């Protein structure tokens, strides 16, 4: 390929890969039909945004944007749209693409012009991964789709057009793909294609022909026939000429694009020495890194080269053979994927067979795997591959980028090899998820892109937590095209926007280059800063001879009236120090950007930001770096010494950001991980924590109940336990009769609290002398950390109450059960996790949890640490996530297995230990005491069976294995509304319609929370959500009513903030019900658009307005001649529209279209009244079996 034409200001823009693709797809489609999935979701969101603004396609029509219930649904609708003559497109990835496969065979088999865009992502195997590789692309390679892969955002933009054009030319459907995250989320400056470019490449005649082939009753034809052995085979071969024509057709469009833009591409593009003897073949974003490396190696005299694969399907042997230099002796084919059991990975197999078939002299061909799940692929690794190729005994099917000490497939890599440009600016920024660092960096790229002829690249790494998450921004600017599709290893500029990171993390200084500039946001004067750094950090600064600058950005922000918003201030410092633009020009550009961003938000906001920019420069100071590292501070240990071996060896390494260094042998072979590891990750992210005041406390335990992170806990315990209490450990007499004589303490886990305020807001006890103070009050962490740490350590050592000592299982009683779900990475103030935690308190010691993909599977199972844990007996929830769409069936299968084991155990018990059978099989296990008694019976049975020794039988030995299955197990199917209302609804409906004891907990946030707030069928009328930006126009699906219609399902609707006792009661009843149970839980969410500290009061407002009903439908009551439905909220006050106005999701609609809001709010009001009336009617119905 010829070098990229230098970007021109007139036609360039800084966009990410997703936007680059969507910008073409939107203009060339009549309809966009999709379903959100990471990392492709933003493509659909861009289209939604553009259509909402009335942006037309190439033919003057605004494309219709339709979100379906699953990717299977999306591609089905696409298929229909194509058949009926509309140009449709879709975007997807990974599991979504797998759900589309059946239809893709059909679309291809019917020779249908169609182009889809895929942000290539790992397919879940031993674990889910949202990151990028080619597993999904490979899984679709047999569908008959053409597959065109691009390597950077510019190529994404260009190839998107070529793919749309070529599918029309050839009638073969195209999958245009690019690497998830690395390309889809990389922000880069690209040259834009204008409408004339699109018109030039799109063949209008081909569109007309496509439309003429549509299904229409005006000229009826039939498609989708069933064919038989006599004809299917021949008919299938009829498509061959169409596939044969694809490579040349694509090349023609490439050539046409080159004529218009100067950007030339080949199907297989060779880069390197024309006389190369060693060549690598690969596709996707890695081509860029390989290109950069080859350039460097060739310049150094090495005879190496690279073939970039653009058109992977149909694979053109001729074009490939032509691209490969004649003298090549060694070829390495690198696959970003793994196909266990195959003779090689897909690209490798294609290359081998292409070379054989080409008839040219056969070089030695090796296959290698790299980059799975966005594993870094660096120039050092490319060089390692070339070095490897030179060895006579070079290993085939090698891996690069990991250490494989099990199968010994990995090749050595020289970590010091680098190809970074000396004339490029490289900067790395460490920020907090919520501090705006990434946004400011995106803005900086735009400023530099717009104000200079420089190339620009930004890539952003997020950690897996949803609260207190670290973001790392990698920015490159330079005069030449930036091909570095890997993270910056050596940055002349590193900024740490949160001081706690440099205090606690060794990896912050890793990317700082020798003699680099380090910018620290620190709450200390410049002359005090040095002493506040850990000794190791000081040493690293000295070793690297770094220049250190500091600013107290939080103070500057506060003084400027900007609260905690430091992003503009830190951005100003970056420009001031990096020299990427002249300082004055940079400041002017920042101010212009501020005006543009904030103009609509008011003059005062603009003025505030301007003041912050000016103050930033005044408060930026160089730190006088001494010659010696003399700090008394050390980095804290990653995990405490008492952490188990696995946590020390594996988890701690991942937590330290060094997971890449772990070898294959470190890992479980099948994705099985120990639970209870979040307790070793003391994140200390709250600025303020709740401090208990026993003098005011009324011992209601509500604070413990609502804590999303199990970071505030209640215990009632014997006074003797206080003998070893640290000084000042607060306790008080327990007041109620049931546990009188015990002591009582509420204790915060100071390093695990996220500072969300829910506990303080829910606390009903006020200090009479100063009512603004309650029984718990938020206070500055630093004033309490040491004391509360010691107190919490002691608190943990106090044994919890025996489970059968809790007399009443209500809000208060439930909180004396140990939470077996703790310190998750959920958002601060999360509305889901209090329910999950409660569930584990009530049933966790005998629960199996099937968890649909979504927020709850991410905070439940995302590494490095996981929150489900064990009690003192070693029991706790066993948890697994299968997929998004199959969770109901997955959990149902667990029940099937448990039932089978219990049945077998019962049979064996009757045969092998009949004297135990009666008591065990007839045991009442409906209470904690009953379960405890059963466990004791099982222990006795097991002792008996073990004691048989020589007289044991096969039956008795098998019974010993199965005996614990005679203790009642609790199966829970957890997931969000996206699962239960949409993608998993069919399966959920089916398993509810079975007569098995399963419990479903729907954490209803009324939106797809995990992927960023797309509308689901649970989204209420009037709420703005992605794909319902104008405000959802139809009512929320009444899932509970649908389930009630079966009659045999226990159904409850709960909202902890409105009635916590009803929540406990409903969960207990659901669990005790011996058939299917469905509990729908109102879960406030950041996607609702308000401060989650008020989540519980907003839940209350939802219930009081009638929008969210509280009820329990218990089929057991019908048998007692009572109404099965009990309404738990019977009086209503507060208006629906007032409830709605508290949340930005509704307010957006009111602000942008008041008339529509009024209409929708009225509809919501009317629908609420109707639903209440219907429920009230049902709650009067007595229908016992005899009446039917």
């Amino acid at each position, binding site marked *: 390929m010829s070098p990229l034409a230098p970007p021109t200001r007139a036609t360039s823009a800084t966009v990410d890969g997703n936007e680059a693709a969507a910008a073409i797809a939107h203009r060339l489609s009549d309809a966009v039909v999709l379903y959100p999935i990471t990392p492709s*979701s933003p493509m659909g969101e861009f289209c939604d945004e553009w259509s909402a603004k009335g942006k037309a396609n190439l033919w003057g029509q605004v494309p219709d944007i339709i979100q379906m219930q699953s990717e299977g649904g999306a591609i089905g609708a696409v298929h229909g749209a194509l058949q009926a003559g509309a140009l449709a497109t879709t975007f997807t990835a990974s599991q979504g693409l797998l759900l589309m496969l059946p239809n893709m065979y059909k679309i291809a088999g019917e020779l249908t012009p169609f182009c889809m865009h895929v942000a290539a992502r790992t397919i879940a195997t031993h674990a889910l991964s949202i990151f990028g590789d080619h597993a999904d692309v490979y899984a679709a390679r047999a569908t008959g789709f053409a597959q065109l892969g691009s390597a950077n955002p510019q190529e994404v933009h260009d190839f998107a057009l070529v793919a749309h054009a070529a599918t029309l030319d050839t009638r073969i459907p195209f999958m245009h793909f690019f690497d998830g995250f690395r390309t889809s989320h990389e922000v880069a400056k690209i040259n834009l294609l204008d409408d004339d470019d699109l018109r030039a490449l799109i063949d209008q005649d081909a569109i007309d022909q496509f439309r003429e082939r549509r299904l229409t009753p005006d000229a009826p034809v039939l498609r989708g026939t069933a064919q038989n052995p006599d004809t299917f085979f021949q008919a299938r071969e009829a498509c061959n000429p169409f596939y044969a024509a694809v490579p040349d057709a694509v090349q023609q469009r490439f050539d046409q694009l080159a004529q218009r833009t100067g950007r030339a591409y080949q199907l297989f593009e060779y880069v390197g020495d024309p006389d190369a003897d060693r060549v690598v073949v690969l596709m996707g974003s890695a081509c860029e890194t390989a290109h950069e490396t080859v350039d460097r190696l060739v310049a150094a005299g090495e005879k190496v080269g690279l073939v970039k694969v653009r058109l992977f399907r149909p694979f053109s042997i001729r074009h490939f053979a032509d691209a490969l230099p004649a003298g090549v002796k060694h070829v390495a084919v690198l696959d970003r994927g793994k196909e266990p059991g195959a003779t090689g990975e897909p690209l490798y197999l294609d290359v081998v067979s292409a070379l054989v078939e080409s008839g040219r002299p056969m070089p030695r061909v090796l296959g290698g795997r790299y980059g799975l799940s966005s594993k870094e692929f660096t120039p050092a690794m490319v060089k390692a591959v070339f070095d490897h190729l030179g060895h006579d005994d070079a290993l085939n099917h090698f891996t690069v980028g990991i250490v494989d000490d099990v199968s010994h497939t990995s090749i050595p890599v020289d970590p010091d090899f680098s190809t970074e440009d000396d004339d490029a600016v490289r900067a790395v920024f460490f920020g907090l998820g*919520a501090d705006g660092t990434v946004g400011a960096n995106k803005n900086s790229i735009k400023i530099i892109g717009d104000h200079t002829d420089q190339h620009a690249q930004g890539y952003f790494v997020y950690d897996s937590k949803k609260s207190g998450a670290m973001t790392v921004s990698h920015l490159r600017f330079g005069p030449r095209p930036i091909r570095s599709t890997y993270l910056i290893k050596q940055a002349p500029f590193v900024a740490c926007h949160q001081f706690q990171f440099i205090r606690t993390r060794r990896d912050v200084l890793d990317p700082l280059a020798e003699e680099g500039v380090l910018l620290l946001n620190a709450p200390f004067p410049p002359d005090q800063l040095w002493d506040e750094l850990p000794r190791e950090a000081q040493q690293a600064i000295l070793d690297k001879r770094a220049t250190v600058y500091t600013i107290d950005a939080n103070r500057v922000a506060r003084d400027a009236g900007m609260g905690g918003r430091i992003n503009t201030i830190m951005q100003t410092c970056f420009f001031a120090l990096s020299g990427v633009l002249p300082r004055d020009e940079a400041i002017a550009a920042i101010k212009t950007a501020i005006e543009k961003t904030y103009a609509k938000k*008011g003059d005062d906001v603009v003025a505030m930001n301007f003041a912050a920019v000016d103050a930033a420069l005044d408060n930026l100071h160089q730190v006088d770096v001494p010659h010696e590292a003399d700090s008394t501070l050390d980095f804290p240990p990653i995990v405490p010494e008492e952490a188990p071996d696995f946590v020390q060896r594996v988890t701690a390494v991942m937590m330290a950001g060094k997971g890449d260094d772990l070898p294959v042998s470190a890992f479980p072979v099948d994705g099985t991980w120990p639970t209870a590891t979040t307790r070793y990750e003391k994140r200390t992210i709250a600025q303020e924590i709740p401090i208990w005041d026993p003098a005011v406390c009324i011992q209601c335990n509500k604070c413990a109940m609502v804590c999303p992170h199990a970071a505030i806990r209640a215990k009632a315990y014997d006074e003797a336990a206080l003998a070893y209490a640290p000084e000042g450990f607060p306790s008080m007499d327990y007041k109620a009769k049931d546990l009188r004589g015990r002591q009582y303490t509420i204790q915060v886990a100071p390093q695990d609290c996220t500072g969300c305020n829910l506990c303080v807001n829910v606390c009903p006890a006020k200090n009479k002398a100063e009512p603004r103070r309650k029984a718990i009050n938020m206070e500055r962490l630093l004033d309490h950390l040491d004391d509360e740490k010691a107190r919490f350590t002691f608190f943990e050592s106090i044994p919890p109450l025996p489970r059968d000592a809790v007399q009443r299982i209500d809000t208060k009683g439930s909180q004396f059960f140990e939470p077996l779900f703790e310190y998750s990475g959920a958002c601060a103030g999360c509305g889901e996790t209090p329910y999950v935690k409660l569930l584990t308190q009530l049933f966790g010691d005998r629960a199996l949890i099937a968890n649909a993909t979504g927020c709850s599977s991410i905070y439940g199972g995302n590494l490095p640490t996981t929150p489900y844990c064990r009690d003192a007996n070693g029991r706790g929830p066993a948890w697994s996530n299968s997929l998004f769409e199959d969770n109901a069936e997955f959990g149902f299968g667990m029940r099937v297995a448990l039932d089978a084991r219990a049945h077998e155990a019962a049979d064996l018990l009757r045969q092998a230990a009949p004297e135990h059978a009666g008591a065990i099989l007839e045991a009442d296990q409906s209470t904690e005491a009953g379960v405890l008694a059963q466990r004791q019976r099982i222990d006795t049975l097991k002792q008996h069976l073990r004691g048989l020794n020589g007289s044991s039988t096969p039956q008795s030995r098998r019974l010993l294995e199965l005996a614990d299955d005679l203790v009642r197990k609790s199966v829970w199917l957890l997931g969000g509304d996206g699962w239960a209302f949409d993608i998993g609804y069919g399966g959920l409906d089916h398993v509810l319609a079975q007569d098995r004891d399963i419990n479903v907990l729907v954490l209803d946030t009324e939106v797809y929370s995990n992927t960023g707030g797309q509308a689901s069928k649970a989204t209420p009328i009037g709420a703005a959500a992605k794909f319902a930006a104008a405000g959802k126009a139809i009512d929320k699906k009444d899932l509970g009513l649908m389930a009630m219609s079966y009659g045999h399902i226990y159904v409850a609707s709960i909202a902890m903030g409105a009635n916590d006792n009803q929540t406990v009661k409903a969960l207990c009843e659901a669990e005790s019900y011996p058939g299917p149970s469905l509990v729908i839980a109102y879960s406030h969410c950041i996607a609702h658009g308000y401060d989650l500290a008020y989540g519980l009061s907003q839940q209350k407002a939802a219930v009081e307005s009638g929008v969210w009903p509280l009820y329990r439908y218990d089929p057991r009551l019908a048998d007692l001649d009572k109404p099965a439905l009990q309404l738990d909220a019977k009086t209503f006050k507060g208006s629906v529209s007032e409830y709605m106005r508290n949340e930005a999701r509704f307010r957006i609609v009111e602000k942008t279209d008041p008339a529509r809001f009024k209409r929708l709010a009225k509809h919501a009001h009317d629908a609420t009244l109707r639903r209440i009336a219907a429920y009230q009617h049902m709650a009067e119905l007595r229908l016992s079996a005899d009446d039917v």
Partner: protein
Amino acid sequence: MDLNTTYLGFKLPHPIVPGASPLTSELDTVKQLEDAGAPLIQVHSLFEEEINQERVAVDQIDQLTTDSMAEALSFVPNPERLTFGPEEYLDRLRRIKESVGVPVMASLNGATAGGWVNYARRIEQAGADGLELNLYRVATAFDLSGSDLEAEDIAIVSQISREISIPLSVKLSPFYTSAPSVAAALAEAGARGLVLFNRFYQPDIDVEELEPHRMLQLSDSRELNLRLRWLAVLSGRVGLDLAATGGVHTAVDAVKAIMCGAHVCQVVSALLMRGPGYLATLVQELSDWLDEHEYDSLAQAFASMNMEKCPDPHVYERANYLHLLRNWRE
């Protein structure tokens, strides 16, 4: 009966004007008021502070949720639509203006110097025929004196009057040490009318829940007396049109206000209690009263009882208070 009056240059067929309230913020009730004979619509206030608060809250949510998670770079659809400015108010004002035939006055309560001027300008652009400045604030700072605050208010009025050409009235609180001096300064600053007086939300306390609550109780006729005093004091002595607001519930209340110098009477609580149609009743009863008392026209009664014309102007002065107090002690 000739009930004609003028207010801020508007020739009105009668002086009973619906004041700023929920009734004048919704199009359907505005139309009902016009049908009941409202000669001018005083639209409810645009509160800059409310806009700012919501904007800051939304800005914080935006920052908290944007670019902080790999799977969800944002949570808000089309975030640039999420601007919390005065558009909602201006749209409503525009629609009211389009659908009624009588003059429409907007009302503004600013919070910042820039906000007052900017919003006033935009209100004018949206088609308002006049603007009532709602100079409402509760002074809680120890370092701001009464004269500082008055100077600020006067500066705001002066700045706005230079920026816009529609007539400007100022709605005052009753808590000025020297209302005449403030009134004169406001007139000097460019105001054309004064609205006497604002009524405030007052706090109450829930002794069970230990929570303060904001209360707004509807007025009754007893509140009129305070207005009568200051109408009478200012009437004819300052170059400003006067509006009475607070306590006008009956035709007799209106007569009193007019006799003390009110060019118009703004009615809110009575309409909220009895519905928009009560406006017509009030007008009729006013006409009947004047008839019964053999007035030629409203103009004859106008300002007849102000300080300059009434039989005993001292009644309006402070001495009166002392006198009454002495009587009570005796």
